[in-house]
């Protein structure tokens, strides 16, 4: 993006985000919802197949999940909600209509705080509603003819749709919004929200207007993005494209455009669904839902501590830097593990615990791939807590501790047990160190000479010799002190 367009036009962006809920069964039938990797059409029943006479039954878990999301995002929860039928003919829609929510959704308004380049700002939400997912059409071409196959496994899965107000102004903000939203969904344990697996899908409405203008420009809906990064790039491309058009005095067309990952561009989609009229009307097969204030209060009490609150608490309670706190609150389970570790190591060792998490532990996790969490490994908060306690009590050296961590990641054994089984406890016995130090002085006349010639660095070499001899288990400070005492005494 050129700096020129940046200064001339303000981009206005709203997102429509679909999130698959991680419920046990589907939205309106008893089918197992977890169909990922399952054989096509293996998670189906007469209800989700849309057979004649079949009726929907509301999945309460999905309703609860949606209400939790609404509460976590500061939404208003109306006392009355209903489902509606959204009518449109398409082969992926088993009943010829989708059960969704039109004018009385579960959640209204709401807000999510995002941070971009160190600056925090609020993104306001319009609503969150619940609906059912569609089947998947798989297009095939065998060289003779092209055809489509239908996989109904996804049909009827609970899908939460969240609509933001046109409240963002850059691709980067949209990226931050989605990342933060996913984090909240995962904290609530109601959704995985993986864009690459279709667990989170996002359409962006993008328009631009000259700075200072009240009125919104004509909006373009951008679809087909399958990662946070592609949402950001699609929006940036679209802002650039619209800016050029406006510069050239061209009229921006209100349309739907598809993002092409390979080129990073958006292309106009044949709008065959022009002026679609969904003919919404209340779903007669499902009575409206009355949501009691007590239900809302019970759910509010169930809300976990959310990422923003936890981040602030970690900074003040444990004296962590913002960067450390951010890493430690990235996932709920990592934060839980950190606090478990601090509980074992002692509150005064919170910083060293954080160092382990943000250093060596993170290295191990990164080696497992992008999004690995501690929960995916054999290591728990207790492991890190014991490790820090061992180091703090001088029972092991820092070098040994790293080895112990490697073993723990491999075997899942606890550090105390590893240290004992392998005899890794640090040698603090002055007599033992003294003996090895004297040997080192005798065996390295060159280093002794250098030291005496005033090269203080030579002491480091000699300490290294002692450590090697003692397999790293010697206390480095004791070794250095002992060496100096002998060298200085001989010189005197």
């Amino acid at each position, binding site marked *: 993006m050129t700096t020129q367009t940046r200064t001339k036009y303000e981009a206005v962006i709203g997102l429509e985000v679909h999130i698959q809920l991680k419920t046990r069964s589907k939205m309106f039938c008893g089918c197992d919802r977890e169909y990922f990797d399952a054989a096509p059409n293996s998670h189906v029943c007469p209800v989700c197949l849309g057979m004649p*006479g079949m009726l929907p039954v509301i999945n309460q878990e999905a309703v609860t999940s949606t209400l939790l999301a609404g509460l976590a995002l500061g939404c208003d929860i109306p006392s009355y909600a209903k489902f509606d039928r959204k009518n449109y003919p398409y082969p992926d829609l088993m009943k010829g209509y989708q059960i969704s929510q039109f004018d009385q959704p579960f959640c209204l308004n709401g807000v999510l705080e995002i941070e971009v380049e160190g600056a925090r700002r609020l993104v306001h939400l319009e609503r969150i509603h619940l609906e059912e997912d569609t089947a998947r059409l798989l297009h095939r071409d065998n060289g003779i003819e092209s055809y489509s196959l239908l996989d109904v496994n996804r049909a009827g899965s609970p899908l939460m749709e969240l609509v933001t107000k046109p409240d963002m102004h850059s691709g980067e903000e949209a990226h931050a919004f989605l990342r933060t939203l996913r984090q909240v969904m995962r904290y609530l344990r109601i959704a995985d929200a993986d864009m690459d697996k279709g667990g989170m899908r996002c359409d962006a409405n993008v328009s631009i207007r000259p700075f200072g203008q009240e009125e919104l420009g004509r909006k373009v809906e951008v679809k087909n993005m399958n990662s946070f990064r592609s949402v950001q790039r699609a929006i940036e491309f679209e802002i650039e494209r619209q800016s050029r058009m406006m510069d050239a005095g061209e009229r921006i067309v209100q349309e739907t455009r598809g993002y092409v990952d390979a080129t990073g561009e958006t292309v106009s989609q044949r709008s065959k669904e022009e002026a679609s009229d969904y003919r919404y*009307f209340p779903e007669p097969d499902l009575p409206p839902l009355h949501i009691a204030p007590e239900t809302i209060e019970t759910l509010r009490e169930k809300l976990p501590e959310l990422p923003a609150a936890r981040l602030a608490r970690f900074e003040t309670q444990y004296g962590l830097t913002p960067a450390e706190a951010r890493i430690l609150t990235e996932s709920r389970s990592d934060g839980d593990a950190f606090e478990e570790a601090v509980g074992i190591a002692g509150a005064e060792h919170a910083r060293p615990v954080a160092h382990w998490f943000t250093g060596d532990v993170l290295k191990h996790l990164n080696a497992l791939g992008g999004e690995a969490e501690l929960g995916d490994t054999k290591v728990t908060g207790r492991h890190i807590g014991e490790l820090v306690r061992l180091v703090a009590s001088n029972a092991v050296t820092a070098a040994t501790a790293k080895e112990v961590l490697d073993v723990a990641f491999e075997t899942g054994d606890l550090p105390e047990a590893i240290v004992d089984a392998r005899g890794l406890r640090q040698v603090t016995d002055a007599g033992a160190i003294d003996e090895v130090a004297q040997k080192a002085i005798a065996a390295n006349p060159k280093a002794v000479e250098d030291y005496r010639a005033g090269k203080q660095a030579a002491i480091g070499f000699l300490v290294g010799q002692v450590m090697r001899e003692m397999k790293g288990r010697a206390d480095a400070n004791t070794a250095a002190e002992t060496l100096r005492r002998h060298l200085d005494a001989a010189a005197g």
Partner: protein
Amino acid sequence: MTIDLDLTAHEHAANLRAGEYTSRALTEATLARIHAQDASLNAYITFTDDLALAEADAADARIAAGDAGPLTGVPVAVKDLLSTKGIQTTAASKMLEGFVPIVDCTVVQRLKDAGAVIVGKTNLDEFAMGSSTEHSAFGATHNPWALDRVPGGSSGGSAATVASRGVPLSLGTDTGGSIRQPAALCGIVGLKPTYGRVSRFGVVAFASSLEQVGPFARDAEDAAHLLGAIAGDDVMDSTTVPVPVPDYTERFDRGLQGLRVAVPEAFFGDGLDADVRESIERAIEDLAAQGAIIDRSVALPAASAALPVYYIIAPSEASANLARYDGVKYGFSVTDGRSVEDEMAQSRGRGFGAEVKRRIMLGTYALSAGYYDAYYLKAQRVRTLIKREFEAAFATHDVILTPTSPSVAFRLGEKVDDPYAMYLNDLYTIPVNIAGNPAISIPCGMSQGLPVGMQLIGRPFEESTLLGAAHAYGQVTDWHRQAPPALG
């Protein structure tokens, strides 16, 4: 021995328990009769002989074990709108010809649990849209009282086969009168339960917020037993209501003394045949003579708007309910189109009959952007008014009495090309579906050799009151014992 097939279900049940004959013998005789009668009536789309005989044997075992209820071993026919596992369920549409459900609807499951013997699937107007059973892809059903006349509809097959003494019991569905009107035109008892009383799970949907499954029988006692077997809460249908199911014969000894009957003049206006009016008036006198308190001062002004309200709400719901029939997944399918969209359109264009398409278009229009408020929303508001009006009337009355249908059975072909004349058949029954109350039609006279029915409407979930009144009325009149001429 020969079995008297003119007996009622409760008479058969008593004979079966007494060992007079077996359910297998009764079922074989019944199958022979309904097969023979069908040459004249065309009341059935599918006969289920094999299923019936298997169920009859099972029923005989239950009877022998002393585990028999009032329906055990008794033949029952069901409207071909009710899903039957392993047996084609067509809704009388070319669209579903050959469609075999993989589950039973709840009511059929409950019939099976009660030990009833299902002998066949009866004819109807396509997707239950009609009042004459002429709109069937499988041909019209004939009225056993006069074969050149309609049996009413949409549950015409279920009514005709009970009236002709083919089976003692059958099930129909009622969206705007589809049980009560054919019951009246065929001279039998038909009851539409309170909305939410009977599960709709597995019933091919026409207008979800209006329809209920209900019994056809020749007397109130049989209707009470059949309703008792199918009624009750169902986890598979969220619109069922967890009200306990009573013994529906509980008010049979109550008589008519003190029964507060509202007779709204609005239901006796233009369009009501003089003969029908005369029969109803005589019935009112009979009720009064038995101690019923007749009140003709009740006005139900909003109910006069029920017909237009119905023809907005029912087609609107139907337009969505029938969207699933697109030829992609099951049923009739055109496969040589230019595209998937073209094949879907052609499948629907050729699979649905004219009346069904008319209603889909009506409903699609009523729900369209810009028209929703003026039609659907307004209809819902009037619906609320009609409900309140019924509630007010029932604060001071036990039942509302009206004619069931403005005329006796009309001739085949007489109204089939005049949709509005056809729709007027349901003028007196439709308000009840709009309000959701229960109502029964009982035989109350004859005109030109054809039966006349009167409708009693009750408070929600008070089907017992209607059945009790029908039973008491049947004790002092014999209209329900009139039989049509025997068929070949």
